């Protein structure tokens, strides 16, 4: 093999290795500053007017809507998972398989809440005999809210109704 070919290959190989690093760094860069930043910004702007409009309009309707809704929603089937939709644990999901789910700051809870407003054993969610999921406040300091009402007794959870504990909101989904 001629000296020239080998030299070209040697330099070419080093160039290819560095090219890989550059491509990898580009991937990281698009991960950080990709098109999603503009998406996120625009989405936020879009979301705001809707949100404030919804908030302003919702309260007068709320009472009537809440009473009618649960029966209608239950017929759609049993929930299969519990989803954290707000708070530091956003996106966490727990499969519902008939087990009791405990929520609180205690580290042996199913969902460990890192939240100053949560008690160490805050609430639990469990299925009753018919498979209906029930949420019960365990004597917490700051209370557990289902939609906008503070829980006083064990209450069945309608599908998709927000359960609020401190800054965390969880929902049951299909």
């Amino acid at each position: 093999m001629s000296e020239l070919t080998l030299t070209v290959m040697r330099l070419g190989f080093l160039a290819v290795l560095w090219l890989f690093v550059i491509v990898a760094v580009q991937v990281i860069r698009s991960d950080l500053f990709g098109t999603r930043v503009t998406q996120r910004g625009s989405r936020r702007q879009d979301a705001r007017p809707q949100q404030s409009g919804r908030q302003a309009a919702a309260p007068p309707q709320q009472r009537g809507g809440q009473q009618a809704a649960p029966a209608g929603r239950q017929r759609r089937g049993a929930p299969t998972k519990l989803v954290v939709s707000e708070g530091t644990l956003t996106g966490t999901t727990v499969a519902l398989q008939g087990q009791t789910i405990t929520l609180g700051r205690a580290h042996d809870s199913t969902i460990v809440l890192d939240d100053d407003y949560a008690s160490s054993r805050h609430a639990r969610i469990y299925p009753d005999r018919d498979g209906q999921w029930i949420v019960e406040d365990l004597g917490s300091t700051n209370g557990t809210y289902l939609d906008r009402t503070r829980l006083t007794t064990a209450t069945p959870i309608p599908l998709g109704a927000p359960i609020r504990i401190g800054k965390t909101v969880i929902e049951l989904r299909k």
Partner: protein
Amino acid sequence: MSVVTNTTTIGAIEAPSRRNTELALLAFAVVIPVFAYLNVGLAIDGEVPPGMLGYGAGLALLAGVAHLVVRKWAPYADPLLLPLATLLNGMGLVLIWRLDQSPRLIALAKRSYGAFSPSAPNQMMYSAIGIAMFVAVLLLLKDHRTLQRYTYISMVVALVLLLLPLVPGLGADVFGAKIWIRVGGFSIQPGEFAKLVLAVFFSGYLMVKRDALALASRRFMGLYLPRGRDLGPILTIWAVSLLILVFENDLGTSLLFFGMFVIMLYVATERTSWVVMGLLMSAGGAVVVGSTASHVQSRVQAWLDPFECLKTAPEGTNMAYACDQMTQVLMSFGSGGILGTGLGQGNSDLIQFAANSDFIFATVGEELGLAGVMVFLLFYGLIIERGVRTALAARDPFGKLLAMGLSGAFALQVFVVAGGVMGLIPLTGMTMPFLAYGGSSVIANWALVGVLIRISDTARRPAPSPAPNPDAEMTQVVRP
């Protein structure tokens, strides 16, 4: 009670899955080692190596299987981890195959064992087992939080793994270090696997205890000193790693475990005092052992002045071997220069013993030069960066600590090996992850990457869209 829709969690930004990016990078990561293989063949024999197609197909098959599994079972995982690991593993295979071609090493093997068996096919098999391990981790570990349940079991398992080489009849003393066990015809390095299990224990333990360790402390000379009773765990780990050092004669393993614990302690508590204490304790331990154990002493001599020690060390002793190796390694790096001699054209086989395992980085240094060494260190750096990024993006404290601990251990291992080979710190018997010859190391590191990919999949999974608000349907917005 305001409804906030945008989230501040890093991982919660709506992320595309990036699997196609991973596939493209993976193809690139397979082509590069094939190019290297061709380069080695042309340089040594002057013709296209006959095994090139088979080698390329094998690597592509392994990478393809790993990619399909990630696509199916961890769709939102980080796109860089798998290609980087594949590239390093592929380059390791090429370098090992290149050293298999060396007439010097073949002659040495024939002289000392009576026969020469090439290492590259074995390493290919280990890589396949490694990928199988990676696939198994992704299939069996659906959620990394389940590992949290096994916190204290992990501690016991890790201790057993660490102490196995000391069991008489099972452990094997290989050139001074007792870090191997022999089962059947295979020798296994249980320490490599203990690394993973210990990371699980440390993260489970620190998650529970971090408040006590971080908050209950006195301020003294600008440092927060923890209470005496909270010192228990760090003292225990220190004692265990010293025991490993004394009885197994392995500086690398004990440094790795103690270092990993200190890193995780710092990350969990945000207290600099732990780092200061950790450094002091490891320095104290190293000095004590360095001045007593003869095995470590010869390494220290070889580190301080290899050329002088080569002249003074008695012929045939352990110290003479250590110094000889070190001088050859330094010569390798030196003769590589900036751009290297080219693949297959160096003389790094003069290192002779362990040229393809502990000292494989010297081959990189000689044949690819400073430019090549830097690029390999960058590959490792990128893997570590993605691991730390995963820790930042993870939502649960256990996942954060686990990702941080695993990438910290990986970083320490790279530092200890590269630093040892380049003469920055005394040499320790550890292997360059993915690059060096050795089954345990390759398999354990593929499992490590599997766990990182699992955590990053959970961390980068987009947050579920908010449930349709039942009120919204009934609200009528009257616009003028």
